[in-house]
């Protein structure tokens, strides 16, 4: 699925490129608010946003969640949810003011001039229609049936899909996310729009696929003279792909200008904070900060955790019969005490399965997992209890990893009561307090429910829970991937500090090489259930030995940002 599209002539090319710098989108003082419901006062969520997108240019709109960037994009595309409406300001698209038009005209004009690409490609496609039918719908009204098929095929070729006919006949769930995103882009292009609104188009995709999709958008932009409004929380992506950037926070635009200028020399404090939190910008935690090396390098190092030739196959059952999915195909892994190992790979590479096997949430088909030189299968009761206590897990999803019914206090008490049955009530309470201190949460939070906590705070509770049993090994599965950048940075620093203070061994799983680079000295790269490369982090990132790792490294967005 490489982006090597046969050059296809699209209608807009025949018309000639749109003159550069002609504005395809002009938004003035846009205000978006909740449709007033009885009892609620109308509150505005987007407040006085103005921006322009020129033909053939890519404009970035960055900000964290809740900043209003997606609503701005949806307002432009005329796709606001029914509870939210444009309250004020004007939107001019391809030379025509949309805000003044009646509903029917507005819909027609919008459909003809804006293409939209969403975050989650598979969910953005109708699950029970074949691609061909969905593409046909996207074509301008009145396209003859026979022509429609050809047009659809052309569009797919234009977005770099090689096996056009197979794709046309497929249902969305039968295609990969990257392929689906290409289909969505093809649909967005079907009516030769002037503007492409891309709302987090790559967030749901693997890194290497991300790069391909962004390349495609770039290429189409240049070739068709499209204006692109790229909405993203990823500074790296915006830095790589846009000419001009708007930074949003709290529903307002706080800073704007040419991308290089804004990111190179941010004026607004918010922009600076955002940049500082970019993983690539985080300073690796050095030996100096860590203090003395935890383990004497000279001492004979015994592996604390040992994984030998582990295999695991899943059987996927469906109405069409069974399918086998090989998750792990003979993986070896050795973790010595005090080490921090990063486990990277794309989705489906088996990294999560491996982590779950190590903590006993998943069984192996074959192979041996040992703790402190002793295979798990041969543990005595006491050994098993010790392993259970000492190897802890931090979950990816801060939302589902906390029981919504339990307060922070009860969540933290659970492991204490199980593992230290001798503790008095007072002791337990004291321990809960000190755990909260350790993860930098106010003690008053102990009576809160998860719904009263932000994502970052929840993840801190999750970390505190893992620390409660006084573990020596922490296995963390994408602990920051669900968090906003600034929060992500703070959690990463917390993890780094805890490692030093508690002398912890880390097995850190991530798809984000930048994040791993910050926290881990050693790196293991997994691909389709096998280890393709391992070694010190810097070595692997600077001089990747396998082409796969190289592709991964190259795909990291925002390299320019790091060097700047």
């Amino acid at each position, binding site marked *: 699925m490489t982006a090597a599209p046969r050059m296809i002539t699209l209608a807009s090319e025949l018309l000639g490129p749109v003159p550069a710098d002609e504005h395809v989108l002009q938004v003035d003082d846009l205000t978006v608010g909740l449709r007033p419901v009885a009892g609620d006062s109308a509150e505005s969520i987007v407040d006085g946003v103005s921006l322009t997108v020129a033909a053939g240019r890519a404009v970035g709109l960055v900000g964290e969640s809740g900043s209003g960037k997606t609503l701005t994009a949806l307002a432009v595309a005329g796709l606001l*949810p029914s509870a939210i409406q444009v309250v004020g300001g004007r939107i001019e698209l391809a030379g025509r003011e949309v805000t003044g038009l009646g509903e029917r005209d507005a819909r027609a004009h919008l459909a003809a001039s804006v293409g939209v690409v969403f975050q989650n490609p598979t969910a953005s496609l109708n699950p029970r229609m074949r691609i061909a039918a969905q593409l046909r719908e996207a074509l301008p009204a009145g396209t003859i049936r026979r022509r429609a098929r050809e047009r659809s095929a052309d569009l797919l070729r234009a977005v770099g899909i090689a096996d056009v006919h197979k794709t046309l006949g497929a249902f969305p769930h039968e295609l990969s996310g990257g392929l689906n995103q290409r289909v969505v882009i093809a649909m967005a292009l079907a009516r030769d729009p002037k503007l492409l609104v891309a709302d987090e188009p790559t967030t749901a995709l693997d890194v290497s696929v991300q790069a391909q999709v962004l390349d495609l958008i770039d290429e189409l932009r240049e070739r068709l003279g499209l204006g692109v409004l790229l909405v993203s929380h990823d500074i790296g992506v915006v830095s790589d792909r846009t000419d001009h950037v708007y930074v949003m926070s709290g529903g307002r635009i706080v800073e704007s200008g040419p991308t290089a200028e804004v990111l190179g020399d941010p004026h607004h404090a918010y922009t600076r904070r955002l940049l500082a939190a970019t993983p690539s910008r985080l300073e690796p935690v050095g030996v100096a900060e860590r203090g003395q090396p935890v383990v004497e390098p000279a001492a004979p190092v015994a592996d604390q955790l040992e994984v030998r030739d582990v295999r695991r196959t899943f059987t996927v059952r469906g109405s069409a019969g069974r399918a086998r999915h090989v998750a792990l195909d003979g993986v070896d892994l050795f973790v010595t005490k005090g080490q921090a190992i990063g486990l990277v790979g794309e989705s489906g590479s088996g990294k999560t399965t491996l982590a779950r096997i190590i903590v006993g949430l998943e069984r192996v088909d074959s192979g041996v997992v040992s703790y402190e030189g002793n295979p798990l299968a041969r543990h005595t009761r006491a050994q098993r209890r010790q392993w259970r206590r000492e190897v802890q897990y931090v*979950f990816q999803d801060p939302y589902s990893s906390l029981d919504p019914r339990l307060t922070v206090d009860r969540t933290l008490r659970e492991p204490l009561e199980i593992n230290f049955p001798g503790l008095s009530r007072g002791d337990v309470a004291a321990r809960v307090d000190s755990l909260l201190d350790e993860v930098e949460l106010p003690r008053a939070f102990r009576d809160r429910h998860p719904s009263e906590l932000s*994502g970052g705070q929840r993840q801190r509770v999750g970390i505190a829970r893992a620390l409660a049993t006084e573990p020596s090994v922490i296995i963390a599965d994408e602990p920051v991937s669900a968090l906003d950048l600034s929060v992500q940075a703070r959690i990463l620093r917390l993890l780094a500090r805890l490692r030093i203070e508690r002398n912890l061994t880390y097995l850190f799983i991530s798809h984000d090489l930048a994040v791993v680079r910050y926290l881990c000295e050693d790196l293991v790269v997994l691909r389709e259930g096998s280890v393709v490369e391992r070694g010190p982090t810097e070595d692997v990132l600077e001089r990747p030995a396998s082409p796969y790792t190289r592709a991964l490294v190259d795909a990291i967005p925002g390299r320019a940002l790091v060097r700047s």
Partner: protein
Amino acid sequence: MSLVQVTEADGGSAVPTDVGVEAEAGRRRLQRRTIGAGGWVGAGVLVAVLATTLIGPLTSGDPLAQNFDAILRAPSAGHLFGTDELGRDVFVRVVFGGRTALAITVVSAVVASLLGLVLALAGALFGGWVDAVTSRLADVQLAVPSIVLAIVVLSFVGNSFVPIVFVLVLGSWVLTFRVIRGHARAVVAQQYVEAARVAGAGRFGIAWRHLIPSVLPLLAVAFTINASSALLLESSLGYLGLGVQPPDPDWGQMVATGQAQIFTAPWIALFPGLAVVATAVGLQLLGDGLAERFVGGPVTRRGLAR
């Protein structure tokens, strides 16, 4: 760069979408919600029915007292719901009939809910063959309409309290089972349950700490729905002559015996029938209210129970 930072700024939600903010607010609103007006009305109706059937017997007369001088009298101040072919007061009979109906309904709904709960939790926690066996049991139950099973059992075993409760339980435990099982399996797959396992919690610890508290609201919903389905089934059995035996009054049976006089003395069949409907509506509204409050959508009754 200080390692310790103020954490209040840990804002933001997991998925970078602005709409999330709105959803968050929506969820808060949702949590504030109670069982809603309908739920309260349902609860009110039930309390009224319960009060009448529990307190009524203390004040009103004998449901079996016959008065051949006042046969088939229309509703009046003296006989609120009129009298039947034996001169018995229909109101008193409806009140007493309610006692039987409600006792049977409540007992069988409790037993059905507990049975469904235990089997569902066992299936969710132990998985494997336990889950397979309990699920097959549910399939077997579903393959025969409960009314058919009830008719078979009752007409051959006899129709006293225990067999009636037995068939009603047989007819409605599957609803609780499937509702709870689906939920429990989803909960068991949640990361917080895995977190508890990693923390060393055993099956019963997980059940006690996480599973049972989380299914309780659902159990309440399932209970009201079980109760209303048991009530309807019980009245159907009574109507077919397989329920509580005369002369003890029972709503369904009263409808059946009064049906012949429906053109000349409609009150005999109508009021017990309306009593069934009112109670069922009460349970239904309460169940819907609870379902909206705790589950976020409807749980269909007949769909599962029958």
